[in-house]
């Protein structure tokens, strides 16, 4: 479970710390940094799993505009039940920002206070699981995560367990308009892009590597979350496959390419597959505005399923939300309010909705208060994450 994110000198984050629980709902005005949190987690995941370099993931545009420093610092706190608490730290220095050049000058991974991986721009020291003996020394690549380059062995299972936990952080910032029905044959999509434009390729990967995920998603869709849905079908087309959805009809099912469906239907399909994948892997599901595109009667059932999954310990859920249904259902217990002056850094407060704060006769809801901008009574002092 991701329990802490720290970022310094990254977009709107300056010495920014976010404590996260099994269910966290990020709230705040437009531009307060909610989506930036999810985007940063996706970037750190991609860096740690070798899906991008520091040059691609942390270009100079990601430096704080008001900050004169050229170093960015990131930390992830991750708890894994059998292992303990990991702290991952990454320091990127922008040596020639005008030419887009940077390099990793520090990358470390610590488990329960003891180092597993210590990297600088000069040397990497890789410790074994027992932190015994001399560490193995390796040469760093200035733009690639050293952790992403370590092959799994019997003596580094603690490090690779961390990397797997990070790889299982599924971040979705859906844009159904960009979703393609085409899955190119030669491209395997193990982790979908945040906008899920490559969903067809991801579903093909899942169908081959995690058949149970596809079965669970289809079962849920047929049981009512997408009325009339029957099954997925991949149709070969040249070097690619086209993802079709079959819908019940007499005398035979009707076929639609994925990109022929409505935005709401596409969003429902992707969310079902994502929830099934998160449940199977036991990782984290991070959703930017999951209520976007959905009909009003679909929003509460979706949110309750996510709440169930998080509280029953099946997977961690981190959401951003503006919708009043999401705000009223979840913000009182799990809300984190992100605050920011238009040109200043983001600050975070835990939210609480209590009778003592509002007066027990008040009929105001959380969404009423947020719509009026009356949130000062809802900000709790620095309360640790649940």
């Amino acid at each position: 479970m991701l329990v802490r994110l720290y970022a310094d000198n990254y977009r709107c984050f300056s010495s920014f710390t976010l404590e996260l629980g099994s269910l966290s709902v990020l709230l705040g005005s437009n531009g307060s940094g909610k989506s930036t949190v999810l985007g940063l987690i996706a970037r750190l995941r991609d860096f740690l799993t070798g899906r991008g370099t520091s040059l691609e993931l942390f270009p100079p545009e990601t430096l704080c505009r008001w900050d004169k420093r050229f170093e960015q610092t990131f930390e992830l706190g991750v708890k894994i039940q059998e292992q303990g608490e990991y702290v991952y730290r990454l320091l990127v220095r922008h040596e020639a920002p005008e030419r887009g050049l940077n390099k990793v000058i520090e990358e470390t991974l610590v488990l329960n206070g003891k180092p597993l991986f210590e990297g600088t721009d000069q040397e990497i020291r890789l410790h074994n699981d027992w932190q015994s003996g001399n560490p193995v020394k390796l040469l760093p690549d200035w733009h690639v995560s050293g952790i992403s380059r370590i092959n799994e062995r019997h003596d580094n299972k603690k490090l690779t367990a961390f990397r797997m936990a990070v790889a299982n952080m599924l971040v979705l910032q859906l844009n159904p308009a960009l979703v393609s029905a085409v899955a190119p044959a030669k491209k395997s999509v193990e982790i979908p892009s945040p906008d899920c434009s490559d969903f067809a390729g991801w579903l093909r990967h899942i169908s081959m590597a995690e058949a149970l995920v596809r079965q669970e998603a289809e079962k849920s869709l047929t049981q009512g979350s997408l009325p009339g849905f029957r099954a997925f079908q991949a149709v070969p087309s040249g070097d690619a496959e086209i993802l079709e959805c079959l819908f019940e009809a007499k005398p035979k099912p009707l076929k639609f390419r994925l990109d022929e469906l409505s935005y709401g239907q596409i969003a429902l399909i992707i969310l079902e597959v994502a929830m099934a994948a998160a449940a199977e892997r036991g990782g984290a599901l991070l959703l930017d505005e999951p209520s976007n595109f959905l009909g009003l009667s679909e929003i509460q059932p979706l949110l309750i399923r996510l709440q169930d999954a998080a509280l029953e310990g099946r997977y961690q859920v981190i959401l951003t939300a503006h919708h009043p249904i999401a705000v009223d259902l979840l913000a009182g217990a799990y809300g984190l309010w992100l605050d920011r002056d238009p040109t200043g850094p983001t600050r975070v407060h835990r939210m609480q909705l209590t009778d003592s704060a509002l007066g027990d006769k008040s009929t105001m809801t959380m969404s009423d208060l947020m719509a009026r901008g009356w949130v000062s009574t809802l900000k709790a002092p620095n309360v640790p994450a649940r």
Partner: protein
Amino acid sequence: MARVCTIILVCEGWRDSAFARGFLEMSGNRRIYPKVNPRGSGHGWVKAQFVNEIANLTRFSEGRGVLGLLDEDGDSGRENEIVIALAAQNLGSLSARDGRCLLLPTRNLETWLYWLKCHQNGIPASIDETTDFKRQPPGGASRITDRDCRPAGEYLHKLDHTKLPEHCPPMLRRGLVQLRDFVEAVSR
């Protein structure tokens, strides 16, 4: 076609909601609209919402039933307050057979969850309905967690109310009968 919810569930918190949904979903009822007190526990909110939702049942044809879950916390007058509130608004009587079901654990839901968990695991359960099991698990037993709630509702669905052992909490026994009547009423 829009999803039509036929059962409105009114309760104090997520645990109550998860427990009730566990039972209802096992009985084939998935079109549930939970209303959970956004401020956490508060019997006044549940009572007011429960009465409002029964009034809504009389106005809108899509709704079939209202299920409320309210900890008595040792206050045995809470059911009576609702009966009086319904009568004052000419909303008829409180009967699970008519799709108006109010579950009332004498102390709180955790008593039921604890008993069901023990019964499912074949552990003899020494239960009274005065101890607050939310805070004080008996005999060093592990506390009830969020993970126990929905499975407890699902397990209750498997039980036969005529064969419950003597040490079953009386209000849980009554609750199971009410739930069976309620499910039959909303299925008509």
